[in-house]
């Protein structure tokens, strides 16, 4: 494709500004984060100074029981959300992949949660919908005569999962629906003529054809669900205790509450390592046939 224009070619330089900006803002700070993770440095305690501590920060976080709670939370959130988003999105896709009254309209409307600011999402759910002492949650439970569920207390992790699923399923749906639409109608018709049931058609014909779309949705979902921060910040603040904190939130707290730069940097490096590890595992698991 690039061979069309053969003359001496300096247009490759057009890449340079983008490469420089992206490197300066993403790669170089990340390399510096790795260096910071080897330092003992508390910003709010200049008297203690900055010193090199090797892997002490890592040792410290790995021996902190709260860290393991947060790791488990992060993995639980990730697996639950990926599974729920994918299954619901496939079901929605099958539902909408036919002639429907107002089908196009509904399809465009149901995407909305993906475009809504997560701070707004979190606060609206936390107050209007799920608050146990006022609002809809209280109203409905007192109407039926039971005590309202405290979504942000004992069930905070489940609530976070519900909110993420609500916000991210539309994104999965967007991609998976595009895949379902690309399945030729004749294929489905001939499956029907062969006497395949709806479920058989879905699992044995449609899902294999749209596998690439499902993989794309899940990979992008994985990356973004691991990054979730605002939702946790405005709803549970990771609480009670650490019960609904994920890795980004724990790292944020370590920087901006404890001001412990070294430790927070170590947490950030661990987060990146986990992201890369999971993405890679996911890639190799799904591209193998």
């Amino acid at each position, binding site marked *: 494709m690039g061979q*069309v224009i053969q003359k001496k070619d300096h247009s490759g330089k057009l*890449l340079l500004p983008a490469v420089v900006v992206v490197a300066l803002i993403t790669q170089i700070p990340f390399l510096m984060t790795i260096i910071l993770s080897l330092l003992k440095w508390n910003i709010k305690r200049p008297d203690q100074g900055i010193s090199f501590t090797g892997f002490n920060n890592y040792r410290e976080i790995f021996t902190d029981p709260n860290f393991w709670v947060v790791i488990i939370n992060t993995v639980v959130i990730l697996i639950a959300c990926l599974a729920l988003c994918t299954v619901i999105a496939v079901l929605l896709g099958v539902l909408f992949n036919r002639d429907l009254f107002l089908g196009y309209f509904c399809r465009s409307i*149901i995407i909305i949660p993906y475009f809504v600011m997560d701070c*707004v999402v979190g606060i609206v759910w936390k107050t209007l919908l799920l608050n146990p002492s006022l609002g809809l949650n209280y109203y409905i439970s007192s109407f039926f005569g039971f005590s309202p569920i405290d979504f942000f207390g004992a069930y905070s992790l489940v609530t976070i999962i519900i909110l993420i699923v609500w916000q991210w399923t539309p994104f999965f749906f967007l991609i998976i629906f595009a895949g379902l639409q690309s399945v030729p109608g004749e294929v489905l018709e001939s499956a029907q003529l062969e006497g395949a049931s709806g479920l058989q058609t879905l699992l044995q014909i449609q899902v294999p054809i749209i596998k690439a779309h499902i993989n794309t949705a899940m990979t992008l979902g994985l990356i973004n669900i691991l990054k979730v921060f605002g939702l946790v910040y405005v709803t549970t603040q990771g609480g009670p205790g650490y019960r609904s904190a994920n890795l980004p939130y724990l790292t944020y707290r370590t920087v901006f509450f404890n001001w412990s730069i070294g430790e927070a940097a170590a947490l950030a490096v661990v987060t990146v390592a986990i992201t890369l590890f999971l993405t890679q595992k996911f890639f190799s698991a799904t591209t193998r046939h």
Partner: protein
Amino acid sequence: MFTLNYEKRRYLIFSTIAIVITFLWIFPIIYMVISSFKEEVQVAIPRLFFKPTIENYQEVISATFFKSLKNSIIVTLGTVLFTTLLAVPASYALVYSKVRSPNGIYFWFVSTTFLPAIAVIMPVFILFQKIRMIDSHIALILLYTGAGVPMMIWLITNFFKEIPSDIVEATKIDGCNRWQTFYLVMLPLVRNGIVSAAFLVFIITWNEFFFAITITYTESTTLAVYMSKYMTQQGYFWGKMSATGTLIVMIPIVLGFSAQKALVRGLTSGSVKG
């Protein structure tokens, strides 16, 4: 006769299910919009029938709201502008220039979007504080541009690749120089893709919270930070909160509608063939 009825019934049943599910799914948004037109007490103790009031909006539209709105607009438009100026030439060069391993560079860009914000915030925070750029528009714009450029390159490179090569060849024979070819021939073909990608960058920047809460304090706080202030309110300001939320989400939703198609095309083109 029977089959026709059967088809018709299926059509009705599935349409109803789809409409009900859609309604339930976006109910939180609808409920927020409705609540924004209620008096506070009607929000706290939900009432189905009420006389709509715009009182909440009148109170919400205040100096601090406008300041955050102004900041959000400056930061978001600045980001979209810089991102487009950097990403469009880069995508062009990845497809039409002789660079070493364009695929490698393309995937390097894509891979930077995997990087969580917490992985870069500490050095950036320390640096910005040293050079007194913390709490400034330009600091936010820089960070968001760093995140937006890879996103946009990811979404639009394939639009450049899909331009039929005989069209490009023909313009060369007609004596167009490269700039003319780009401007007169390619740009009209990829314009929709670029606009949609710009919309998406707009939406993501507008909604971004992590950088906004960490590197702004008072002067450059965006709407996301303004909104987060409502998180501790215990039921006295839910009407105003709903009004604020409604105002904040309007623009992204409208832009989102028009970006949907290109979003799917861009995101799936890298990994999905055909």
